[in-house]
């Protein structure tokens, strides 16, 4: 494999504590050398990327995407989804198991990672916690893990039964896997299509109460706490519960409290939950329909606060592509979800960094180092020598406008069409290969 020299850029690698002008040499898919400007040694025959005036950072990692394959290729394929990831600066994505069939086997896990899928970036499958996402029978976590699964979840089909969730947590802990829960007590959200409250009432839509989310988060925290008290994780890894796409103030508060109590509970927030509110449903815009739904302004503010004060561990997009015809239907009948891979960095830099003054290193950490740590993705989320050569190079000063029609994703279902972004991706490099040039 060829050698790549990224020259003259400003390297920000929060995990390695680097923030300054550096040249970087990538060789054989790994970071070979980090040196002061013009000081790199191993650069014979290197292809040169001039990063003068640009920021160089560890490739972004999105731990919550739906790539739709196998089985739902009309919405997205692994090839198109990872092309969108590359365009957004992502070099690794964790793919949810609600495919057709469900990813609850080593075969599907391997199929998703096979070269034939034409993936632009590294795909880490997340396995189904229970067979067919039915919340009844646990899958074989040891087999899934050895095939490459990095966590288990029944995303979208939350595990409601206490005894099953307890068993999932226990078996996942024994196998060194994280459990990701989409926290929604679906008994409280039947027929609902947006956040419960005055807006839903006025629009004549049934609402999802915030309790449906935080009630299940609190239940899961209790289960983890009981397992720890019973000795789980004493001799090995601690039980790890990761709360997907938190959207309510109370859920973030519950995570904060659990962490104070020493439990390994983490959470992610999606850009739409720190930027939009239920008012964006407007005249029944199906691009404002997702699950969890857009919440109140107070909830949105709590997401921002949680990111700023550090209780939120990662920004994850919940990239959920749907074909245009599937979204061009009555609001209540439209599927949940929006795309997100190409807008996460631009929105985060514009709003979290420029508007709300979160240091750029923290923003990048939430998009790379921290998600890598959450799912124990070794050698990722940093550009320390020896790490995978996963790099994003972007122009931090450039403002640009996102146009959904230009998206690399097969689907264009985004509420951010026409939004101004900050920080244009110039190069995305996945394990030493340039997979995107902007």
């Amino acid at each position, binding site marked *: 494999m060829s050698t790549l020299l990224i020259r003259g850029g400003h390297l920000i690698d929060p995990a390695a504590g680097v923030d300054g002008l550096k040249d970087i040499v990538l060789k054989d898919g790994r970071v070979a050398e980090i040196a002061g400007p013009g000081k790199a040694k191993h650069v014979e025959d290197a292809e040169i990327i001039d990063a003068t005036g640009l920021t160089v950072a560890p490739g972004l990692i999105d731990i919550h995407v739906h790539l739709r394959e196998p089985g739902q290729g009309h919405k997205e394929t692994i090839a198109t989804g990872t092309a969108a990831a590359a365009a957004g600066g992502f070099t690794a994505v964790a793919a949810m198991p609600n495919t057709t069939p469900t990813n609850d086997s080593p075969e599907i896990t391997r199929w998703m990672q096979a070269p034939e899928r034409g993936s632009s970036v590294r795909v880490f499958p997340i396995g189904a916690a229970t067979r067919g996402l039915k919340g009844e029978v646990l899958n074989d976590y040891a087999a899934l893990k050895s095939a490459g699964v990095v966590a288990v979840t029944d995303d979208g089909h939350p595990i409601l039964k206490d005894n099953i969730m307890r068993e999932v947590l226990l078996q996942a802990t024994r196998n060194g896997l994280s459990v990701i829960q989409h926290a929604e007590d679906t008994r409280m959200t039947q027929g609902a299509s947006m956040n419960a*409250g005055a807006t839903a*009432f006025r629009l*004549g839509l049934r609402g999802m109460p915030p309790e449906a989310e935080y009630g299940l988060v609190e239940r899961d925290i209790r289960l983890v706490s009981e397992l720890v008290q019973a000795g789980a994780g004493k001799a090995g890894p601690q039980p790890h519960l990761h709360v997907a796409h938190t959207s309510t103030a109370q859920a973030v508060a519950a995570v904060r409290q659990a962490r104070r109590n020493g439990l390994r509970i983490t959470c992610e927030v999606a850009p739409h939950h720190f930027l939009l509110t239920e008012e964006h449903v407007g*005249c029944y815009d199906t691009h404002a329909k997702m699950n969890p739904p857009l919440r109140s302004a107070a909830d949105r503010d709590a997401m921002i606060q949680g990111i700023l004060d550090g209780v939120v561990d990662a920004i994850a997009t919940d990239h959920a592509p749907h074909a245009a*015809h599937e979204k*061009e*239907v009555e609001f209540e009948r439209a599927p949940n979800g929006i795309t997100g891979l190409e807008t996460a960095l631009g929105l985060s830099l514009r709003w979290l960094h420029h508007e709300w003054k979160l240091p750029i290193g923290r923003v990048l950490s939430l998009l790379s180092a921290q998600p890598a740590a959450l799912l124990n993705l070794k050698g990722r989320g940093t550009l320390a020598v020896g790490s995978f050569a996963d790099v994003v190079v972007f122009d931090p000063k450039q403002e640009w406008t996102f146009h959904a029609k230009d998206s690399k994703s097969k689907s264009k279902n985004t509420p951010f069409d026409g939004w101004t972004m900050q920080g244009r991706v110039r190069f995305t490099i996945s394990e030493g290969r340039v997979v995107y040039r902007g």
Partner: protein
Amino acid sequence: MSVTTLSLDDVSHLLARATFLEQEDPLERTKRLAKRKIALLFYESSTRTRTSFELAAKGLGADTTLVSSLSSSIEKGETLKDTGLTLRALGAEAIILRHPNSGSPWLLEQETRLPVLNAGDGMHEHPSQALLDLRTILTHLRSGVTSVAPDTLAGVTVMIVGDILHSRVARSNMLLLPRLGARVILCGPPALLPETAVEAGPGIEIERDFTKALAQSQIVMMLRIQAERLAGLQLDLEEYKTSYQLNQDRLKNYAPNAVVMHPGPIIRGLEITAEVADGPQSAILEQVHNGVAIRMALVERALTVAKKGGQA
């Protein structure tokens, strides 16, 4: 599509046109929209709304065609978008839509670019009902008033009783009447009337004690319990009747001069007794009658405004 998209000038104009068209010579009137094509697209059953929209359109000379969810390709899985495009291709110049999903008129308008009249969308709104209710209220309480202003209904209290949660009629009325100065009291059990209802707009209050609300009201709007939208909610109907049924005793004791209204269909013996529904204070059939005039004004507006290239 929603009463919130109508200005008070729009409302005044519609009321005036309703009266004018109602009084106009029927033969002259049929020239107004002669041979214009209007589709009635009904995904839910309807007697009053469908018939009065149809009579209104025909009264103006338009050709109407009815497509209902049974007996059409909707049964075969055709989407609202495709059904709308099909109707447009067949020459429809406006579509009158009734649909079980809130917000569907926006979808239909967006996809067909035709004027769409909302004949009731899910639990959201039923704007033509609110307008005909307003006409009925004005006839009784503000006789001779031909245009409305923010103080037209000042001092008037309208109570809406029953299944507010599932009622598009309630929403349209509670969003329209306070803009004319009316006070709206909502009354019903928590399961059918959530506290958040007061935040829907200004001028809305909740009073759960039926007789207390009754004693303050000049207009009493009764609603049917929408069994088809209860979604698993269990209601004790006997208890409901005890607390919220409008019967002759209650009416005589607490609101002997109030006008009793009901958008229909009425369930005699449940939310309202037969003697009240048929009694002297009842304006229920008057409401139905007003429907045709109001809907003539709405249909005329949809086709003439659209012709000028403006917003429907």
